[in-house]
């Protein structure tokens, strides 16, 4: 018996380069990945959205600053406002911050170096849909690859996010100068999350860690729960 997985859209902007990896990872984890071009004004019938990594619009002006005006982003904002699950990875995180769907902003790494390596993350909040497969305090090994991953919020905003439990992941050893070691944040409602590390690159033992499957698997399971059941033979107990 094969059950169709939840449909999860992966947006492609001009300059996205992890869209196919994200689609592959989602398929591997049992979802049905739906590629969506940024110029689409409407999202197809989906239960989740991934904004992938890359260099949308060549990172012109500020990372993510131009992509957030893509027609599809208006639809993503509406989807998020209705409680839809949205995960931004790396450039996707930058876009969500610029779009005001997530707090803070991503800036050039403190070292000015492009960083490409595995990092260890600590799960701060396991109550989001994206971290529901993790436990608080759990360590995850997931790669980063970014030049502008230094997340910033002023002291007041940071305190507010801490109180509202919106800081989801922290680096064990801060690679990029991010304030308070923050690696991932979510919105107040918890249905939108952004992270700099790349869970889609950590789903296959061939590539080292499979800890990314916990994050993306969380999204897939939450999307499955959010999808209207496709009742083929719904027999009551």
């Amino acid at each position, binding site marked *: 018996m094969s059950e169709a997985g939840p449909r999860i859209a992966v947006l492609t902007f001009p300059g996205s380069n992890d869209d196919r990896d994200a689609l592959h990872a989602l398929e591997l984890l049992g979802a049905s990945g739906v590629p969506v071009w940024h110029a689409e004004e409407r999202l197809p019938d989906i239960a989740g959205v991934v904004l992938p990594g890359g260099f949308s619009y060549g990172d012109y*002006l*500020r990372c993510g*600053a131009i992509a957030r*005006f893509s027609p599809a982003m208006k639809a993503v904002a509406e989807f998020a406002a209705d409680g839809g699950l949205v995960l931004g990875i790396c450039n996707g995180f930058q876009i969500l911050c*610029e779009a005001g769907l997530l707090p*803070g*902003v991503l*800036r*050039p*790494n*403190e*070292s*000015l170096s492009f960083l490409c390596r595995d990092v260890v993350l600590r799960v701060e909040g396991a109550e989001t849909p994206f971290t529901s497969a993790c436990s608080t305090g759990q360590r995850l090994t997931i790669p980063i690859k970014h030049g502008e991953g*230094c997340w*910033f*919020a*002023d002291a007041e*905003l940071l305190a507010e996010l801490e109180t509202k439990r919106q800081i989801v992941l922290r680096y064990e050893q801060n690679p990029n*100068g991010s304030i308070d070691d923050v690696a991932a944040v979510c919105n107040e409602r918890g249905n939108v999350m952004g992270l700099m590390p790349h869970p889609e690159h950590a789903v296959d033992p061939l590539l080292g860690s499979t800890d990314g499957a916990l994050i993306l698997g969380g999204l897939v399971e939450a999307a499955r729960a959010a999808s209207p059941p496709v009742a083929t033979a719904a027999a009551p107990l």
Partner: protein
Amino acid sequence: MKATVLVRPKPGILDPQGEAVESSLRQLGFAVGDARVGRVVDLEVEASDETAARAEVERMCRQLLANPLIESYEIELR
């Protein structure tokens, strides 16, 4: 009307680009300190007068040209 927008990292915001420029200038023998790197945007604005042009460019700054969390801006019109 022509407008020039100067976008700067806000005081206190870490500016690694500025630090790299400063250290390079020092290596060249220049006695400099506190270098900060911002951005210049030159524009042409259609507006009836300077007040309207300024208001228009202000809106551009708030919506796109600067990120208020980390950047300040200055508008020059001529």
